[in-house]
């Protein structure tokens, strides 16, 4: 066992650092470190720059234009970008649908979609959940009826993250109702500019607009947009899931959040001493660091076993459960750390904006909103209850 960085690793780390410096301004990063959200343009430009530099699509093979990094490189990239508070790569295109197209797509589909994903010309969203099927995905009702060379799609997708920015949606639809739920599902790519698509915002607890409901009414989708075979969508979806693994734990982002929390706790005071020296607060912080390291080293163990060719099973669920819990706990303790300023509404990035003025320190401005917003982490991507059901089958054989 060892955690040694070889020279090339350190060289790689420096490259990343330099690249961030030369592409993102001090104040942009500062704003982000105080919880400010990046605009669509800022995100897209960042991704384009990464691609130009050959640092994009780390999970794609080289022949498809990816950079195919090894676990250590991904680990370093995640750490450096997290500590610098760069924009996060939007996963729907490059992390999720990209590998699916590479694995199941026809050469025409590959030509058509992959370059636009690599160059971030297309913004993708995920059409999975429906009002009636959240945890129970297989019960989805959105229907795609074959009509000549097209499918006519009718139904409602909800909880659709950033659909308001999206050019394309990858979507699970029901193409057969006369069989077991899983067997009647197909994986379709839908142009968000198609006639019959309506996107309605869902405002979340923090007053922000991140998720949406997408209504599909007689939307015409060419059969060329079907990925893999009709009624084989479940196979595709399962393959996709296995590719979210590395990002799902958000270890690096949590590490960086703890670093920020420690800074805040060194600035704030409790009965005239730095808050971080207060035993009660300190122990909660210590517990977070314990949980964070337990998660970090679990991820590292998984990465090295993976590098050694070990088959991976339940780990994604394990990392998802603890990763999401950790994000919530950090935001909860940060809320405590900033004192009662944490319950004052931010004067930034808030749809139902009510406060022109924020009375507390900059670092406290979005803390309350973040606490409310992160309630989602244990719910989305398969709620933690569902993850535990999966684990009890896969690991325990129960």
């Amino acid at each position, binding site marked *: 066992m060892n955690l040694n960085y070889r020279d090339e690793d350190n060289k790689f780390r420096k490259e990343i650092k330099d690249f961030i410096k030369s592409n993102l301004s001090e104040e942009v990063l500062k704003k982000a470190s105080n919880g400010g959200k990046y605009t669509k343009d800022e995100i897209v430009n960042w991704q384009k720059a990464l691609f130009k530099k050959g640092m994009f699509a780390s999970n794609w093979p080289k022949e498809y234009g990816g950079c195919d990094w090894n676990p250590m490189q991904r680990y370093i990239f995640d750490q450096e970008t997290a500590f610098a508070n760069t924009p996060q790569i939007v996963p729907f295109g490059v992390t999720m649908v990209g590998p699916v197209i590479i694995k199941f797509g026809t050469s025409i589909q590959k030509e058509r979609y992959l370059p636009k994903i690599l160059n971030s010309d297309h913004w993708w969203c995920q059409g999975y959940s429906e009002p009636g099927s959240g945890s129970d995905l297989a019960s989805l009702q959105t229907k795609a009826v074959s009509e000549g060379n097209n499918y006519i799609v009718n139904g409602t997708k909800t909880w659709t993250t950033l659909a308001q920015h999206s050019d394309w949606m990858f979507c699970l639809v029901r193409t057969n109702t006369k069989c077991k739920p899983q067997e009647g599902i197909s994986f379709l790519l839908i142009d968000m500019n198609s006639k019959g698509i309506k996107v309605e915002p869902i405002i979340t607890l923090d007053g922000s607009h991140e998720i949406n409901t997408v209504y599909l009414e007689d939307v015409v989708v060419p059969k060329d947009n079907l990925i893999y075979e009709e009624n084989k969508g479940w196979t595709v979806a399962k393959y996709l899931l296995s590719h979210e693994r590395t990002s799902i734990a958000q270890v690096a982002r949590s590490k960086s959040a703890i670093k920020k929390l420690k800074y805040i706790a060194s600035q704030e005071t409790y009965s005239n001493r730095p808050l971080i020296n207060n035993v009660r607060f300190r122990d909660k912080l210590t517990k977070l660091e314990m949980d964070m390291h337990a998660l970090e080293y679990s991820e590292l163990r998984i990465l090295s076993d993976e590098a050694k060719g070990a088959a991976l099973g339940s780990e994604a669920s394990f990392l998802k459960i603890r990763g999401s819990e950790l994000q919530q706990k950090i935001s909860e303790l940060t809320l*405590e750390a900033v*004192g009662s300023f944490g319950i004052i509404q931010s004067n930034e990035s808030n749809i139902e904006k*009510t406060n022109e*003025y924020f009375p507390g320190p900059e670092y406290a401005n979005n803390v309350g909103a973040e606490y409310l917003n992160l309630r989602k982490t244990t719910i989305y991507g398969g709620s933690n209850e569902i993850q535990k059901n999966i684990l009890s089958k896969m690991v325990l054989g129960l």
Partner: protein
Amino acid sequence: MNLSLSEDQVLIKESAEKFLNLNYSFEKRRSFLENKKEAYKKNWKNFAELGWLGLAFSEDVGGFDGNINNTMTLMESLGSALVSEPLIFNNLVVGKFFEKFLYVKGNEHLKEIISGEKIYSLLFSPNQNYKNLILDTLIVKKENNKTTVSGKYNFIFGLDEFDYLITPILIDNKIHVYLLKKNIDLFDTRNYETIDNLVVSEVEFNSLELKENSLLLTINKKEFFEKLSYIIDYATLAMCSQALGIIDKMYALTLEYCKTREQFGKKIGAFQVIQHRLVDMHIVKEEMRSLNYMGQLSMEEEQQRIKSISLSKIFLGTNAKHMSQDCIQLHGGMGVAKEMSIGHYFARITTFCSLFGNSDYHKERYAIND
């Protein structure tokens, strides 16, 4: 020994719920939030007419018998309707202030508070660790027999609509309490909102002159803080009672959701894991009520009061907070959508955890007083 609700309490509970269901529904509330000032006036007038503003005070000032159990029963109902009007601050705190510090039969200020004619506020900052609880940040100057005060304050609740501001100031190591009047004694206020839409004010004095005729009383520090501590504990318990109403409501909403929401071909309430979590919630809400009653029954013996109120606040900041998170979780995606009421209850619990000292503050206080 009797820990069951009295007939009065049952009456108050029923009438309050009846009124609030009708006049403070989730939808009505939304419209109130769009026009807070108007809503405040209208609702305050209603509360006065219902006698709610007198519940905590004695007959001779236009109140009732001031029975604490009755007051806390009302607070519970206000909590479950997510009432945003600051009764705790513009009624209980200021009313108890006059009761404790300047009680005279038929006290005029108390009459105005109870009738709702005039809005009183206390300059006091009930934040998470009582930083600048009161006075700490004010600078007093005496020049050619004028006394002026300067300084800034935060987390003043219920100041938005005030007519009078009760302002305790430390001069020559004694507390001088002034009664500042709107439009006569001028100072800057800035308003902003909490994540659950309560209005908070920041106050700034710029060498404001303190006139003799606005001096209510002078009192030595020790006695002042002893009495203030009672008032704060009363207000803290009132907030915990509102929180109790909220937690009960969150439990009911979550139970209802689990009984109706279907996944995998059955109600999610049919899954054993969900059932046991609902059971845990049921127990937590009952424990919260039990500690709340303990607080109500301990108000008049100082050490008991301090310890039991702190236990209620610790419970709110730990077990109850955790339960509020679990309620969101069991609502799944719907739990984070602002159109649902559950999230609004969640936000208020979050706010309450941070006010009047958080759980760590009260753990310290409990330890010192045990």
